């Protein structure tokens, strides 16, 4: 049986995806409760690419109406965790 990834693993993966979208960003300084778009200056295209990367990595369906739930690190981690339950 495959073990469920820990929250820390999930967060590390999310940060890695963000690093691919915004390679110049200082992700260590990211506030987990503040919008990525505000902190990393992501535009709509960047955010769409991030959502696609989340979909491909975690195999989760993300309807457009749920985008606001994925705007922060804590929000993303919670959504990924919820998708596994």
């Amino acid at each position, binding site marked *: 049986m495959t073990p469920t990834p820990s929250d820390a693993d999930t967060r590390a993966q999310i940060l890695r995806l963000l*690093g691919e979208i915004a390679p110049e960003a200082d992700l260590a300084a990211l506030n987990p409760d503040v919008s990525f778009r505000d902190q990393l200056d992501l*535009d709509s295209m960047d955010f769409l690419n991030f*959502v696609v990367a989340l979909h491909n990595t975690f195999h989760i369906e*993300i309807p457009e109406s749920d985008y606001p739930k994925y705007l922060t690190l804590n929000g993303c981690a919670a959504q990924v965790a919820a998708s596994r339950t």
Partner: protein
Amino acid sequence: MADFVMPTLGADMTEGTLVQWKKRVGERVTKGDIIAEVDTDKAAIEVECHATGIIERLLAKPGDKIPVGTVMAVIREEGQPAAAPSRPQLFTPQPVSTQPVLQPDTGTAASPLPGSRLRISPAARTLAAERGIDPTGLRGTGPEGAITLDDITRAAKGAVGVATSANAADRQARMRQTIAAAMARSKREIPHYYLSTTIDLSRALAWLTAENGRRPVTERLLVSVLFIKAVALALRQVPELNALWKEGEAVRSERIHIGTAISLRQGGLVAPALHDADRAGLSELMQRFQDLVKRTRAGSLRSSELSDPTITVTSLGEQGVETVFGVIYPPQVALVGFGKVVERPWVADGLVVPRPVVTASLSADHRVSDGHRGGLFLAELDRLLQEPHAL
């Protein structure tokens, strides 16, 4: 014989540096093939060939700085005999003295995602594959930290240089100068006029929401693609805005190539072309737009994408801007701007209701068009955005 010359890839580009030939002497090339990679003030560019035939001679070598319009190679077109060896060399090399340095990345290198934004020039990517080097572990010295051919070469040799951002900073400074020159020329030479209109987007956004609800996440559309397509179609009705100013007169373009202003993360912007945007469906246009943004920020554009735009579209809504008063990029004769989509009171059927609206603006060259035609263009743009299903 056909001459392959250093193309002009922007209003104020005067020279480029040959990074790499992509073809060898004696090799067959077809119109549209990538023949060389050239470094400019803005990015490393893959330069396309405009003739079909056999490479007869390569007149420049990697590292040479070459003025715009200078013959770099000679192509023997189909059915022609080989040239006499005494043909004079048309390019005189000017060696470049600066050498980029490589800094090993001290961070944790991770494998890039498919389609993710690793900044690496096409030539460097090819060389890295050939040498078995993982470029994700390197820190590049090109524009915005892009990994260049020299970075890969040095990595292959095991060379480790001194950490510096001088090259990146220099690139930024040169890009700023290039933009400054183009914009100063624009304001000096082009008598701009400006018009704007507020467009009700409720139908367009409702259609987009429904459409995206039917699409998998990988195929969803952005509203900016609707704007680009609507501009392209509106230009069919007011074609004088889709033109270039050449030698004292406007020359209309039969094809509509939308230059899309794309900001770079470290500052500056590039506006490469979405070719024939009026003919592409929204899905295709979205796919090409995504690819264009990715390659622009990775420093991997093609020469035609920089030389072909016939008009520029810029969207600054995500920066909170409501109205754009754009500066035309010469030799183009118009620029269309979109601001932020905002909720505003709107009168419909005698009632005041909240509606999402956007301010679309037109900056146009008064030598080529007047306010009446500009107004018709904006009216047509508005009409098209009321019928999003038809875009």
